[in-house]
């Protein structure tokens, strides 16, 4: 496989940043469209955390790489296959249950990931992870509480929540599959092997689903490709919007 950077540590951090960038973009699409004003604030908060994490991951990646690129280059000036986020985070917002199910899965994955990354041999990365884990712990609780309300709310909300889980579950396996890059950074003590996180994920998610009276979907073979730069059709549309000003005005300084 080809890495997104010659430095495996940088390539791996970029992957984390790509993940939060794309999910953060999806969150900002909710703005002024949430079911309540309180939830508009909450979703903006999730988006802010994700964009903040993106900046930290990208910036540290650029430093490790040698400083030739910066966060704007990474976020705004690359092509689709250069982004290495798992497919989960580029899936459309759908309805509120779809978004909350997606976020439950993301936060259930990212929280133990960041918690272990807090022991990275790179002190900078460890610090970013510590801070980020605190944020996603809150995300996990927020998404979990909503899944419980929706799952144990009305018949309609139960049905939508279950359909959301069923639709998104094929994107779960990719999150926990270690590839060469994952193994390389884990072996060096810099990063985390995602295959070690599955038990934590299951514990957190199982607890929510039980309280939500929702059925855990059977484990599918799953869809994968994003971590290797092979995306769904959605990412191109996200980038067209995200990158527009930088692409149209390459000489501008904002």
């Amino acid at each position: 496989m080809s890495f997104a950077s010659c430095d495996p540590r940088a390539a791996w951090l970029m992957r984390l940043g790509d993940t939060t960038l794309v999910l953060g973009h999806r969150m900002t699409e909710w703005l002024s469209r949430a079911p309540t004003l309180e939830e508009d604030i909450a979703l903006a908060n999730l988006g802010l955390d994700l964009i903040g994490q993106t900046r930290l991951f990208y910036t540290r990646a650029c430093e490790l790489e040698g400083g030739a690129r910066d966060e704007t280059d990474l976020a705004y000036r690359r092509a689709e296959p250069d982004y290495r986020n798992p497919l989960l985070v580029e899936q459309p917002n759908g309805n509120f249950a779809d978004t909350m199910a997606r976020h439950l899965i993301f936060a259930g994955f990212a929280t133990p990931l960041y918690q272990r990354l807090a022991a990275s041999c790179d002190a900078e990365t460890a610090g970013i992870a510590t801070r980020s884990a605190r944020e996603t712990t809150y995300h996990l609780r927020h998404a979990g509480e909503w899944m419980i309300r929706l799952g144990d709310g009305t018949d309609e909300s139960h049905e939508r929540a279950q359909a959301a889980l069923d639709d998104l579950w094929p994107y779960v396996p990719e999150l926990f599959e270690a590839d060469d890059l994952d193994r390389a950074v884990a072996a060096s003590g810099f990063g985390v092997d995602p295959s070690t996180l599955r038990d934590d994920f299951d514990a957190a998610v199982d607890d929510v689903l039980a309280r939500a009276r929702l059925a855990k979907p059977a484990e599918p073979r799953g869809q994968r490709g994003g971590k290797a730069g092979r995306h769904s059709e959605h990412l191109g549309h996200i980038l067209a919007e995200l990158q527009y000003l930088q692409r149209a005005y390459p000489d501008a300084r904002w």
Partner: protein
Amino acid sequence: PDRLAAFQARIDAEEKIEPNDWMPAQYRRTLVRQISQHAHSEVIGMQPEGNWVTRAPTLARKAQLLAKIQDEAGHGLYLYSAAETLGVTREALYDQLLSGRAKYSSIFNYPTLNYADMGAIGWLVDGAAIMNQIPLCRCSYGPYARAMILVCKEESFHQRQGYAIMVAMCRGSAEQRAMAQDALNRFWQPSIMMFGPHDSNSTHSELSMKWKIKRFTNDGLRRKFIDATVPQAHSLGLTIPDPDLRFNEATGHWEHGAIDWDEFARVLGGDGPCNRQRLKHRRAAEAEGAWVREAAAAYAAKRRGANERAA
């Protein structure tokens, strides 16, 4: 009448009126109208800026914009709460917004057409809002005054941030400077209209002054805003789109040309560039979120039931 005199005496003594205190029905009505309009403005005001969040040109600008819009939603919440202390429900007020019966600041019926608009809104719109709102921090109604202290603090941060965006745009490429000038051209008149009609045509004013809901006249606040803003525009190298604008050496104030009050009335009356779009967006969000709110209510009812059974 005795109560009214006592009430006025408290006002005159700069005492705060609190929710459980007696107040004239008209005082209550005026406050409900003004506070809820302000709350609606915050909520609708999320849209013109929300239009650029997915396209913000850097991650820092994206986070800044997102945080600002989040603050606006928060202001909406505070203000609805302040209005609720006067015995109305947020749902009822919200319904007035969605049905088109309630007003909101007409500035939000103008579209945001380039990224410099994010600067212009902070600099001009929030700037004008602060001029209007700082006196409200001393408003006679306690909950409103306290909400406004918080709101004004955040707004003045937004205002400085907006000006900083304008500075960046004006120091940028020729295209960026053109965007900045274009933004100023489109937002100048609507901004100075935010202070409302000339004092000679202003309804509601006299009583509001007497009750210390309002402390300065529309024209006075407008003059203050223009005096503060014109030099800033000049220092940005931008031209205020008013050929009649001139500095009056005698008064020490800037004097503006005629304001198009017909346009003001039209936009306020529902016929601005984005009135339909803004309400349609808000209504669609409400309709699409209905099943979620119902689910939350059903869940809460079940929990209450379970707790009662357990008790």
